[in-house]
């Protein structure tokens, strides 16, 4: 049992991929599965900054939205092929991450959350007002990708199952990338910064640069999630950029388990599925989601997956040396 656990955590990308492969068959409808996939990736990118580096950003919707809009605009105005549009979207969110990160990293501690929120709102209002390009309040429409050609094979992108697996390819690549980052020396440094920033600095690490790099990488992953969302919905709604959207990904991260690899997907899945279910039962889903979140903050700060991992590790008596979350 213990061996299985250790093997699974060593090959975490594989394990997660296996779960995600089977996922759409378990969900009541495909669009929900795709949504969970996309927001799961969004949460993974966010978790890199929040769970692993310990920086609470409340403006990450900006990168999600930038990725969505730039991919969308490339397709609508420049008629770019979809894969190039994704590259453009990711690049744009990396640049955005650099600019916003540069301004935000200068602030310390709890200021960071407020500053990122406000900077994110700048992006929101900017895109809102530029309605000639972005469609403003109505969102960007017309991001049509009906058919994809991969090496001569024609793939019908409109079919939801096909769409899921195509998007899954990108998600898996991103996950693999994140896993490598976390397993690298850089990954160790960001966790060190989370645990004790002063000590990390004393050990000689360039804390500011590391934080900025983590911020930018996280922005890129969230941007990629945004690109995928644009392709999925064929529109980009303007409130992808609002701080309430940032708040949603924060909730997903915490609910799932900050600082765990699979936690973000659990968080995204639970939150989206719950919202779906609760909405059919009552109008007051906002209060219920808020209450659940408050309970988690108070009693289960490790999140669902984090708590499960914690309990499992205790039961299997896995030492700190062997664990690899």
């Amino acid at each position, binding site marked *: 049992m213990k061996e299985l656990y250790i093997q699974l955590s*060593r*090959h975490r*990308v*594989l394990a997660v*991929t*296996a779960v995600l*492969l089977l996922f759409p068959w378990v969900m*009541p*409808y*495909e*669009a*929900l599965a795709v*949504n969970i996939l996309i927001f799961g990736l969004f949460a993974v990118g966010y978790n890199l900054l929040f769970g692993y580096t310990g920086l609470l950003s409340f403006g990450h919707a900006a990168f999600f939205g930038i990725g969505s809009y730039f991919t969308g605009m490339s397709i609508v105005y420049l008629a770019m092929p979809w894969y190039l549009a994704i590259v453009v979207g990711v690049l744009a969110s990396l640049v955005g991450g650099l600019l916003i990160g540069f301004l935000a990293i200068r602030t310390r501690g709890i200021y960071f959350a407020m500053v990122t929120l406000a900077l994110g709102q700048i992006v929101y209002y900017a895109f*809102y*007002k530029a*309605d000639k390009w972005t*469609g*403003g*309040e*109505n*969102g960007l*429409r*017309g991001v*049509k990708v*009906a058919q994809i050609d991969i090496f001569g*094979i024609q*793939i*019908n992108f*409109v*079919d*939801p*199952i*096909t769409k899921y*697996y*195509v998007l*899954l*390819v990108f998600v*898996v*690549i991103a996950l*693999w990338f994140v*896993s*490598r980052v976390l*397993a690298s020396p850089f990954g160790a440094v960001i966790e060190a910064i989370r645990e004790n920033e002063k000590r990390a600095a004393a050990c000689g690490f360039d804390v500011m640069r590391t934080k900025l790099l983590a911020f930018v990488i996280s922005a890129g992953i969230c941007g990629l999630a945004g690109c995928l*969302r644009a392709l999925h*919905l*064929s*529109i980009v*709604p*303007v*409130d*992808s950029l609002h701080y309430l959207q940032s708040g949603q990904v924060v909730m997903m991260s915490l609910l799932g388990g900050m600082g765990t690899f699979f936690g973000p997907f659990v968080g995204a899945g639970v939150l989206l599925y719950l919202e779906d279910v609760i*909405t059919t039962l009552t*109008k*007051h*889903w*906002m209060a219920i989601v808020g209450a659940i979140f408050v309970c988690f903050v108070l009693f289960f700060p490790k999140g669902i997956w984090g708590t499960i991992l914690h309990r499992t590790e205790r039961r299997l008596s896995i030492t700190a040396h062997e664990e*690899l979350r």
Partner: protein
Amino acid sequence: MSKSPINTGRRSAIVAGAATAATVSVPSLFSIAKAQSGPIKIGFPVPLTGPFSAEAQDQVRAAELAIKEFNDTGGFNGRKAELLVRDDKLNPGEAATRTLELIEKDKADYIVGSLSAATQLSINTVTKERKVIFNSISQSDAINEVKDWSMYTFHEALNPHMTAGAVARYAFPKFGKKIVYLTADYAYGHEMVRGFQRAGKEFGAQTLEDIRHPLGAPDYSAFLPRIQALKPDILVLCNFGRDLVNSAKQVTDFGLKKNIKVITPVLLYTSRLAGGPEAFEGIVGGTSYYWGIESTVPAAKAFNDKFRAAYGGSVPSDYGALGYAGVRSVLTAVRNAKSTETNAVINAMRALKYNFYKGDQYYRRCDHQSVQSVIVIESKSKNMKDKYDVFSVVSIENPDEKRLRSCDELGHKA
């Protein structure tokens, strides 16, 4: 770690690649073929939660009425209709997801709904792609334009040009030529201004100034002195919902109504209730429906009575009536076409001439816009017979295709 990360990565890439290849080569198991038996399903995404939930709930009630009527008169080929109501939270992303759910999971045959420009456009994007009929029941100018439109798109509701135009044609000859606009600075506000100006040309109306305010601005005191100084005959509040309530209130507080007639393109029943009689006193606006026209329009009386009977004496609101008509049009077309097949129903809707609640209507060929009457109302604060009696009907503009933007203007080739 004994295994190097590279192996793990390669392995997962291979697995993912194989899975994808396997899936795309097999025809999808989840085809979207619609059932030929069982209930006729109409998906109904509306914002049940959020600032317009009151309107949305009215839409649902009225739509249920249309469904019940259809079922009580035999349905179609023994099949009954069913309304699948979903909450889109006034959020375009959510609206798209719900519509996808309705089509994929619930196998809805047709979609009727929406209560904002943004959500209807996003619903339309989905229905366009999936080749499902969508009858939109809220205002939008963009949905008729060739960029967003498709043959599956129908627009039961009014668009800003129609409402602004009707109000302009009533107010400008009556109250004066010097106009000031207080406009919410976004696409919808600009559309309204254009509608007014276009109609105003006929009367020699002169725009003194078009003052833009940020959307959702809580405080208009910055603009009101300027408006007073310009001494216009008419002040047009080109904003919507809460902005309208806010600006109406502050315009009243500042005493602008003494010398200036205040008009607005769309005057909603719920805005009037939220703002109160004083704030809205004397304000003239346009609407797709007000129950008060029943004194002169027999179809309205019939509709109102049906609604009163079903819902304990309350009357349908503007958006409610649209919910009713939107659903009833589709179901009537199904009967006329003697089929539920999409293309047949589209042709039936194109040929449809109907009078469900306020007079004759039909869908224009090039953009499926429902050509219909526009009602101009004035808010009152005295002599209100009951809590529903908040407006007096000052004018009903008859349906006229010439009042719409032309097909060419919208980009449709004849």
